[in-house]
């Protein structure tokens, strides 16, 4: 809108006002030209974002009625088996929310389902980013922000799970207390600091409440802002395809197509969570009764995203050392702290680990097909297998009763699976990736099998292969070769040790591990040669050759 024409509608007037003062139209035009690639896997992060919005909305409703206090009271309300029972304010208000406040149970259930789906969708989103290599330069920072968001999600979920102060949440906190106390020397001090005295104390619920409704949501909000800001700034990555390069983005403009789709999608996500909240029961706190340190229920488990820690605790043999009169509980320290710490460390550091191994310092905006990076893909699958086995271990009692097995056998089987499963999964995945690459190469060279058998004049048979069109072939040949880095020798010609040679040796090993076994991508000259050969083959009916395969060993 230019400054000389006068708008004659109210909306136009407001727009003009903003435009002349803020230059809004330029911003809107820029925004609306922003392009978004159209692929379902780019919507996974959106699911997480929308679930978070659902969490904010439903959580705000809960704060209106939830009383974050461990002061004693008695519940008086509609749920008969807990009527007039002494309990904490927190538990009583959760029961009131469930039975005596209109819409309260629905909101609780929507909130909790949204929490599970929030973290699950973050996880799936992370898988997408990982397996397509979207974390490579220049997006390492956003990968790190994402990892922190995932951790904050766990923190939000766990602090929320602890708020109702029922038997289940109290048991969860008791485990956390145990894990903290297993830290040598400072453990007990930390635990007393956290609980303001001996567990359970009277302060943990109000403290967790602030963490849950203010600290973590605030941090998540800020980091989500940074995360999306970076996506905007750095632009989306895109899947490889004809016409898609490191210099462009192919997709729909933000307005109107993408905005309409995204807006619609928000309502779909909201709707699904509302349906779940309406029809499927979650965290039926009234079953568990008020927290009391003495009882514990069979089948006590955390929400899904914490299962892996519980599982690690269940699998760990009971190692305990006594050093100079102090007990060091490796049986809790390792699965409860060291292992999750290590897993988080590898998660955050992965982009740097990979670029260190590849020596690749270029920017990447076109995604990898997972098969073209076999070791990364295989490592990802191995990690998922490890995580899943640990999570399964947390359900060992339910597996035992529902499959009619002995819990002892299950525990032993899972101990071995946790150690042997990931390497096996790694090996199988890597083989599959290499096989797929080989297949791609063959396809690009010789085209699709048509099933049409031709007999030549000499009586020879061969199958006619239909060459791919250029678009399809592009996808198969676009990727770069990846080879292990070659580092200069450890000593120079004068026999003087090169500084950093030791570190380089590790780097060389890592790089070999990543890139030694590989299928060389087709070069243009190979392709051209194959074309010629193909024509020739059609005429002469020659058989095909196996493609060149480079392997390390």
């Amino acid at each position, binding site marked *: 809108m230019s400054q000389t024409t006068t708008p004659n509608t109210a909306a136009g007037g407001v727009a003009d006002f903003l435009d002349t003062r803020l230059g809004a139209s330029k911003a809107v035009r820029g925004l609306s030209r922003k392009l978004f690639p*159209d*692929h*379902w896997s*780019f919507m*996974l992060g*959106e*699911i997480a974002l929308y679930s978070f919005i659902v969490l904010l909305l439903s959580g705000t409703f809960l704060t209106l009625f939830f009383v974050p206090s461990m002061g004693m009271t008695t519940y008086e309300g509609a*749920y*008969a*088996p*807990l*009527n*007039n*029972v002494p309990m904490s304010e927190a538990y009583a208000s959760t029961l009131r929310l*469930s039975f005596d406040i209109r819409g309260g*149970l629905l909101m609780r*259930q929507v909130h909790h389902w949204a929490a*599970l*789906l929030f973290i*699950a*969708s973050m996880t799936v989103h992370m898988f997408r980013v990982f397996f397509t290599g979207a974390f490579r330069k220049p997006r390492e920072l956003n990968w790190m922000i994402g990892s922190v968001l995932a951790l904050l999600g766990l923190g939000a979920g766990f602090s929320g799970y602890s708020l109702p102060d029922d038997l*289940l949440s109290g048991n969860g906190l008791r485990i956390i207390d145990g894990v903290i106390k297993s830290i040598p020397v400072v453990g007990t001090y930390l635990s007393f600091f956290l609980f303001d005295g001996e567990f359970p104390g009277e302060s943990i619920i109000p403290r967790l409440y602030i963490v849950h409704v203010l600290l973590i949501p605030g941090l998540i909000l800020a980091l989500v802002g940074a995360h999306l800001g970076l996506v905007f700034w750095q632009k989306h990555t895109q899947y490889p395809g004809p016409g898609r390069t490191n210099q462009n983005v192919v997709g729909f403009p933000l307005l109107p197509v993408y905005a309409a*789709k995204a807006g*619609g*999608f928000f309502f*779909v*996500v909201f709707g*699904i969570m509302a349906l*779940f909240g309406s*029809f*499927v*029961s*979650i*965290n*039926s706190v*009234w*079953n568990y*009764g008020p927290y009391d340190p*003495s*009882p*514990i*229920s*069979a*089948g*006590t*488990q955390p*929400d*899904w995203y914490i*299962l892996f820690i519980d599982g690690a605790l269940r699998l760990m043999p009971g190692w305990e050392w006594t050093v100079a009169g102090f007990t060091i509980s490796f049986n809790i320290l390792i699965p409860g702290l060291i292992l999750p710490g290590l897993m988080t460390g590898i998660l955050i550091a992965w982009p740097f680990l990979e670029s260190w191994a590849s020596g690749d310092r270029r920017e990447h905006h076109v995604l990898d097909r997972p098969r073209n990076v076999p070791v990364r893909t295989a490592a990802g699958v191995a990690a998922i297998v490890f995580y899943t086995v640990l999570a399964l271990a*947390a*359900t*060992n*009692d339910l597996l*035992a*009763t529902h499959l009619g*097995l*002995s*819990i*002892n*056998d299950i525990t032993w089987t899972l101990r071995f699976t946790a150690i042997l499963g990931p390497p096996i999964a790694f090996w199988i995945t890597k083989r599959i990736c290499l096989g797929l690459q080989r297949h791609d190469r063959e396809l690009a060279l010789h085209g699709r099998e048509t099933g049409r058998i031709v007999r030549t004049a000499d009586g020879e048979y061969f199958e006619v292969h239909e060459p791919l069109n250029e678009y399809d072939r592009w996808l198969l040949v676009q990727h770069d070769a990846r080879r292990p880095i070659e580092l200069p020798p450890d000593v120079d010609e004068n026999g003087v040790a090169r500084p950093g040679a030791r570190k380089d040796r590790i780097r060389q090993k890592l790089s070999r591990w990543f890139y030694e076994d590989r299928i060389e991508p087709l070069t243009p000259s190979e392709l051209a040669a194959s074309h010629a050969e193909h024509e020739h083959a059609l005429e002469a009916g020659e058989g095909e050759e196996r493609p060149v395969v480079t392997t390390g060993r």
Partner: protein
Amino acid sequence: MKGLAARRRRPLATVVLLLMALVVTGAAYAVAAPTFANASTTAAGDVQRGRDLFVASCASCHGAQATGTRAAPSLVGVGAAAVDFQVSTGRMPLANTAPQAPRKPTEFTQQDVADLSAYVASLGPGPAIPEDQYLNLKTDDESLAKGAELFRVNCAMCHNVVGAGGALTRGKYAPPLEGVTPKQMYEAMVTGPQSMPVFNDANLSPTDKQDVISYLKYLEEQPSPGGFSLGSLGPVSEALFAWAFGIVVLIGAAVWLTAKSS
């Protein structure tokens, strides 16, 4: 073009179909799941007939005098309640060797069970069949609250807070308590079958036991307040549901939305 569009829609259709199929199967199971007849009326037992039945069905393991063999313990002094519980829940006669005798439909009539119980009771004093007055279900809030608390403190560690069952070591398990008659519940508490401890009247008075039974039956009869209860197994079944339904449906929606309209 139409054909193409139809093919793109298909993944979502599959998801929806799958969902519907699962819901229908679940509902059908809930309707068709076995229910147990309430057999709390006691008939007077005939010791002589009981002995004959015992010799025919039980003596091979428990011995002709019920004094036990290498295969099975002595039944002298276990009382009528133990026999009534074991036989009416189908645990005895033991069918095959498993870590634990499973509950199964019994082959004996109520009269048979009463006779067998009377015979074993005649061998030595032991817990008797519970009196009917303790088997009436109470519905007042106070009794339910008491029963719930007693159940959480004494039983939930094995049977789960809502009696959904739980695992013990080496293939043994505390069974789910749905469909168990009040009489069998009472008998289980006084006789402590297998790995279950005995809750005698000093531990849990008869009225306490009645409260526990009333609470368990209350849980069984009340509809789940929050909707589908997913087996009342807690966070694990919720986790499964979130992934198997939630994430699948959400991704299905994403695939559907991004499928290009043609």
